[in-house]
């Protein structure tokens, strides 16, 4: 169970996240939704301790200890173009082995299991730069799974992907959650949130304005007031 209390983030003069508190149970896949600029990415980065913030979480304060419990998939993810897929996924084991040690046989097994889970074992020896955007996202997802953290925070993991890879990545997240990992994923696609997620947390202007099952939260009122759309997918007047 991951709990965070009164998380606030100040970005310049703007309060990007405003006293957000919530609890995520083990094995839950949570969609963090909201319009652009609502504070989704800032909340994820604050929980990951990547940006200055106030408030607390029940995650370890120590950087190394926290990195074993929390895996982070960035929005604009990158990697050296000429590296092998296998080597990039193996970097997910860094919190466990440190940066100066070599992978043990156990680590290699876990890296292969993560690649298997993401369906990239077949191209594990290919060059990262030769892969498509969807394949690269799955490589990074495998890298986060290789960490075997209790909490996975994914910042818009499907935004730039075609429908096939959107479904593929959401399927991987669903199966990972079913195995006990808590996942909070910032999403823009509300249909994906409804289809795959246990919980939906709605953010608007830095506040967490609704949380519950997709049916409880994605109501016509929320769609109109937060997203400025109708249930039929039109712009609300």
């Amino acid at each position, binding site marked *: 169970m991951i709990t965070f209390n009164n998380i606030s983030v100040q970005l310049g003069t703007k309060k990007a996240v405003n006293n957000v508190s919530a609890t995520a149970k083990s094995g839950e896949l949570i969609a963090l939704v909201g319009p652009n600029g609502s504070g989704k990415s800032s909340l994820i980065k604050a929980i990951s301790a990547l940006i200055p913030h106030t408030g607390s979480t029940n995650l370890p304060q120590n950087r190394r200890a926290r990195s074993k419990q*929390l895996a982070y998939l960035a929005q604009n993810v*990158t990697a050296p173009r000429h590296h092998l897929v296998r*080597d990039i996924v193996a970097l*997910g084991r860094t919190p466990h082995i440190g*940066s100066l040690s070599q992978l043990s046989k156990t680590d290699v097994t876990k890296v292969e299991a993560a690649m298997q889970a993401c369906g990239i074992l077949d191209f594990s020896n290919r060059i990262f730069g030769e892969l498509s955007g969807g394949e690269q996202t799955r490589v990074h997802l495998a890298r986060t799974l290789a960490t075997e953290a209790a909490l996975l925070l994914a910042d818009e993991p499907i935004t730039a992907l075609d429908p096939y890879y959107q479904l593929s990545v959401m399927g991987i997240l669903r199966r990972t959650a079913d195995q006990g990992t808590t996942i909070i994923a910032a999403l823009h696609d509300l249909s994906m949130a409804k289809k795959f997620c246990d919980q939906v947390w709605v953010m608007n202007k830095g506040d967490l304005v609704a949380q519950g099952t997709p049916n409880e939260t994605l109501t016509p009122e929320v769609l109109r007031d937060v997203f400025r759309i109708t249930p039929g997918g039109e712009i609300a007047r």
Partner: protein
Amino acid sequence: MSQKLWCFSLSMVCIAVMLMSIMVGTTPITLSESLAGLAGQSSNDINTIIQDIRVPRAVLAACVGAGLGASGAALQGFTRNPLAAPGLLGFSACAALGAVIALYLNTPTFITPAAIAFAFGGAVAMTMFSRHKPGASGLVLAGIGIGALATALTGLLMNFAPNPWALSELVYWLMGSLKHADLADVKVAVPLTAIGVGLLCLSGPALRVLGLGEETARSLGISVSNTQLLIVIGCALCIGSGVAVAGAIGFVGLFIPHILRFVAGPDEAWLIPLSALGGASFLVLIDMLIRITSGPGTPLYLGIATSLIGVPFFLWLAWRQT
């Protein structure tokens, strides 16, 4: 070929080039005589040539080349910028400013401490100016600014040189040379460069993770600021001691890591030691060629030769990669 094999091969190349450098010169000396001279068991003349002139020069060339190569690889890895090099980020300019001040004040004994002190001063300034934004962009911006300031101050000193001879001394010194290499220089440069290269090698595995981006690296437990500190101190030691004994030698730190990345693979953790070995071999070889080709007149300066040889090769490499 695996990186371990590349390391072993480049070590052998470096040793071979250093042995050749000891044998070659105005007075050719055979391998057996050179080895006897190294042990002090040859004639007095040979012992003197080997121990007091050629060995210090070869060791210093290797030392300076290793520092430049390792610094370039670490800076390119940390900034994820293929143009990053000790010259671009101000380390060389700061060290050169220190040495030029010592020359300007006519205190040549202070060249070494001044170059090292100014390289460290530049490193401290870079760290301070980038402390609100630790990471690649902060270091690059601070480094370029401080390097430009050091270059301008060096130009100012040259502008106010008291006489043409003092100016020519400054200009020749800035071209880089090992012709005055001696054992005293070796005793200063070798330990400082060894510590510097060691620190840079320690940063290598963190650089591997930093390739994923700073946020992702931090989420994996890597401290960007600690890695930056290791690199800044390592570069200051390598470049400060290198500039102190050999003057400003450009380009090696830029193109040696590119060549080795191209042939031996992109893994930063291996690229730093490989670039140290590659830089050492390259500079010993170039210094030896200068000694062979230069007649009794004005010798070609090392900094000029490294650029003349390095630039076409670098352009060819850039063209091939494109």
